[in-house]
């Protein structure tokens, strides 16, 4: 079996490491930040590269640095979580290595030495199977796609890698969003549409999201109306999500919105209009006032 290199310089992705271990029969080399070697080993990494670096601003320089290391390790398969940062860095690595790269995969399988990558495109309305034509095959993988599996490697080798190149772009500061679960990684999404009607309405949904440990989503019309920030927008021009549960409050169900959430495990729609298209795409519908239901859920203690 061929070795798979998993690049997680900003934080180990246990699900992806576990999947790589399964695909390669335990031949995983993992690049993780300092302090995460134990986590990488627990997910089955056989060789662990512990990265020592100051906060990275010039991702192009970092990509060139990694491409050089990958040549040295002669890894034929390179994976990374499809986070904002890695989706910037992996294309640049791929360019330097002349490697085929597939973005945001949701399924991976080996056919002999070939990595067959499946990814959704155009919302969720197309599914494509893609392979690389180059000696090195690369893919970014949507975070949360694969469940983490414990599979401790008995004796992982650990080496240290120091990155201290001169940077042309510097990171001045980082400000975390206030509270809540990041939308793209949330297992439950509580989303609102025009029916929620106001910024105050979304504040109520946010309280519910916090209570459920959910991410807060919004339709484009609600974002355009200023009820919720753009970073909450789910759909074609926003974020594509695939949580275990998508809870849609006052969302009518425009195709552009459906494209961003139709891959969800379960969809529950709450809308006062029994004819709203969203009900056709929901596993369970509640016809009624979204706010009355939200109040009920906020009062429930057992949730």
């Amino acid at each position, binding site marked *: 079996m061929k070795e798979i290199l998993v690049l997680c310089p900003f934080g180990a992705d246990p699900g992806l490491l576990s999947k790589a271990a399964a695909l390669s029969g335990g031949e995983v080399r993992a690049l993780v930040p300092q302090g995460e070697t134990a986590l990488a080993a627990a997910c089955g990494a056989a060789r662990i590269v512990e990265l020592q670096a100051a906060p990275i601003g010039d991702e192009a320089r970092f990509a060139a640095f990694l491409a050089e290391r990958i040549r040295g390790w002669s890894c034929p398969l390179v994976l990374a979580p499809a986070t904002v940062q890695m989706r910037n860095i992996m*294309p640049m690595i791929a360019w330097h290595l002349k490697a085929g790269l597939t973005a945001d995969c949701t399924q991976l399988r080996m056919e002999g030495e070939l990595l067959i990558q499946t990814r959704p495109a155009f919302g969720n*309305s197309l599914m494509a199977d893609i*392979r690389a034509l180059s000696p090195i095959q690369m893919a970014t993988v949507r975070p949360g796609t694969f469940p983490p599996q414990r599979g401790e490697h008995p004796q992982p080798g650990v080496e240290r890698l120091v990155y201290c190149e001169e940077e042309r772009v510097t990171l001045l500061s980082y400000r975390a969003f206030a509270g809540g679960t990041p939308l793209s990684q949330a297992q439950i999404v509580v989303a609102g549409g025009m029916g929620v009607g106001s910024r105050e309405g979304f504040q109520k949904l946010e309280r519910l999201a916090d209570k459920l440990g959910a991410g807060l989503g919004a339709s484009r019309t609600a974002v355009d109306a200023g009820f919720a920030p753009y970073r909450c927008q789910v759909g074609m021009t926003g974020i594509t999500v695939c949580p275990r549960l998508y809870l849609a409050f006052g969302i009518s169900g425009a195709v552009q919105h459906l494209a961003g959430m139709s891959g969800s495990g379960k969809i529950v729609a709450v809308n006062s209009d029994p004819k709203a298209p969203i009900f056709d*795409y929901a596993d*369970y*519908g*509640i*016809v009624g006032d979204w706010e009355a*239901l939200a109040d009920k859920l906020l009062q429930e203690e057992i949730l």
Partner: protein
Amino acid sequence: MKRILVCVKAVPVSAFVEVDSQHRLKRDGINLQWNAADASALEAALRLAGEDGSVTVLTMGTSKLESPLRELLARGASRAVLITDRRMAGADTQATARVLAAAVKKLGDFDLILCGCKAIDGETGQVPGQLAAALGLPCVSNGETLEADPDGLTITRRLETGTQELRGRTPTVISLCAYSYPLRLPGILGMRRARNIPVEVLNADDLGLLPEQCGLKGSATKVLAMESRFPGMRRGPKETDLTLGAKALGQILREVRP
């Protein structure tokens, strides 16, 4: 900021599309629009360029894009370039970046290259980084705001869990989020001005590229299979009693939570 280049892509208007036997999006006969994030990049460029700077819009696509490009001239771009060549059809992100990089080199020196962070059709977001790598420039992705001063650029960038503030210098490649800068409407003066600016058209030969460097042949990935998948109708039961609805929802929540 003197010279800014903006890469734009025409994408289908409809949310659901079909593919041909070669696994390429069927682009004939469908309505196209400029990708929303690319429109934001153009607006950011127009603001940075001000009165004395120039903004060039560059696209790769069918020959039908000449008149949509003219609309971008009417909105304030000073120069429009269309790369069109049948041999470029089916390009993956690497073949696309190679063509764009060749065009950037041919068109002259730019202080700044702006792109949208991803197109709503392919959704890869890989072209800005690969273009930067081909040109040996830094690349900042997912920008939300972009400001220039005599010493450099300040960029805020949205990640999953928060916002970074970055400081860069020219020349550089930056990709912007959709709706970060709503694109201005064309004015009468702009429309009049656009009529007198020819859209420059380039093909592979003009860019000194061989057929094997372009399109399907120049790609490092291959689509093996593609299927259209309209979001499945689920049509689950509907409840009109809120108390019962809340109870059922509580049950679903217990099922999905570990």
